[in-house]
């Protein structure tokens, strides 16, 4: 096994860069949501152990000679942990009241903006189809609903006939 000091140093530098980057992001998030009462997510809390582990395993791997396909397995494991770490960070961010509020507001705005446009488009399509003497979606939907109601009534009739038949067969002398 070769001496791992050199690569370790190199990876140590990378790790520092990553950490500084993550801390900068953390500061940015803290500033933007400083006014909010709920706790701010700390991405570095998830990120740091994963990064440390990744850096360590990579430093170890690069120091190994000869290189085996084990390297790829380790890379896959690192990738899995990296994705999992991001999943946790995102999950924590999306689990905040602020995110839920923001999403609700965006959806509301979208619906408020969409509703009048949708109404106008629906009306125009309806009129166009009527002019072309073609059935509209609402007419077809109406027919489908009637069919469902008819099916329901047949079911009820069938049920009551079956119940009456059962009672009759119970009364019949054996």
């Amino acid at each position, binding site marked *: 096994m*070769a001496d791992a*000091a*050199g*690569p370790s*140093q*190199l990876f140590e530098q990378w790790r520092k860069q990553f950490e500084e980057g993550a801390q900068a992001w953390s500061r940015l998030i803290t500033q933007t949501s400083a006014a909010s009462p709920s706790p701010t997510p700390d991405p570095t809390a998830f990120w740091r152990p994963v990064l440390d582990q990744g850096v360590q395993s990579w430093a170890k791997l*690069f120091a*190994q*000679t*000869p*290189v*085996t*396909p*084990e390297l*790829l397995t380790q890379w*896959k494991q690192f*990738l*899995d942990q990296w*994705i*999992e770490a*991001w*999943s946790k960070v*995102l*999950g924590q961010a*999306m*689990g905040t*009241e602020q995110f*839920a*509020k923001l*999403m*609700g507001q965006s*959806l*509301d705005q979208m*619906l*408020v903006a*969409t*509703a009048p446009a*949708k109404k106008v488009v629906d009306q125009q399509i309806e009129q166009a189809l009527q002019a072309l003497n073609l059935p509209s*979606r609402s007419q*077809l*939907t109406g027919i*489908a*609903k009637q069919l*469902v109601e008819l*099916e*329901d009534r047949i*079911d009820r009739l069938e*049920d009551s006939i079956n119940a009456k038949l059962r009672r009759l067969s119970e009364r019949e002398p054996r």
Partner: protein
Amino acid sequence: MAPERFVDVVERFTTGFAADAPAETIKQWQDELERNVRRMRNLHGLLTNPVEPKTGQTPRVEIYKRNKSRLYRYESARSRRTPVLFVPNLGISRPYIFDLLPGGSFIEHMTKQGFDFYLLDWGVFGPEDNDLSVEECVTKILPRMARRVLETSGTDELSMLGYCMGAPISASFVASHPEVPVKNFVNMAGPIDFAKVGLFGLWLGKENFNVDRFVDTLGSVPADMVKAGFKLLKPTMDMSTNVNLWWNLWNDKYLEGFQALNKWANEYVAFPGEFFRQWVRDFYQDNKLYRDELVMGGRPIRLERITCPVFVVGAKEDYIAPPECVRALIDKVGSREKEYIELPGGHISLIAGRGAAVHCWPKVSSWLGPRS
């Protein structure tokens, strides 16, 4: 010691790779190369000639239909006396996940264990179904389905098995229809206490989500919106799926399973508008089922009125129905015989896949078996 230069590291790495490699290492690299060739071949096949996976192969007969809903009976030796009515989720996805592939199917497992197995397929809804409500499912569809099961099986009792939202729906049915002879009730990953339901609970909360405006504007919940909601719940899911696909792409068996699961995972089903309104308001926002405040068809729904043996299965990593909200059924039912187990896996892997075949299916069949 002077710090090593990057070029030295690269040189040592490349030298180490090429020189003095033992025969075993060379063999390992040859195997890896072979795997990569197979990866490329399978990737080419996936892109140029995608094969439609054959899902839902367990033989079945349609015994009843009502509008879009179908009741299927599966072929089995029927060595167990009590039939099982399986109630999955309505909307969101198709139920063939429970009969994905031969050798990887919950339904096949249950039929092999001798259960007379019935599946309620709620169907794919269109705009004409926007008036369908949870209440109609509980008070009109489920009673009919249960009656058909009893009629066709020739028995006077049945077991009910609910999965995901099929569990609170069927629990509501069992609690409000004492005249229907339900012998056993199984809840698999079905949320009961919606105060503990996780991210969806937060997003759909009264303060954050105006369900009336949503349904009044859109009429229903389109499949694309259902998809967006679920993708948002786990944004890294697609990435990890693709990484795992690449990693296992050399494996033909994995690929077959992936194609089937991927087909299912991308086939979303819309929610009827009124169903969604009632589901969100009564269950997510007001938690009426757990609080005993739900009334359907004029009947109050009290979970304590479920007195048959109850088996509840939660999944440890379930972020759609976290185990604590599933487990809540145990504390609410009036049954003397009740059991809760928590198994490894998520909401889907609890019921489908290799893990399910090892952990979940045998547990469910072995609990139901002696009681059937």
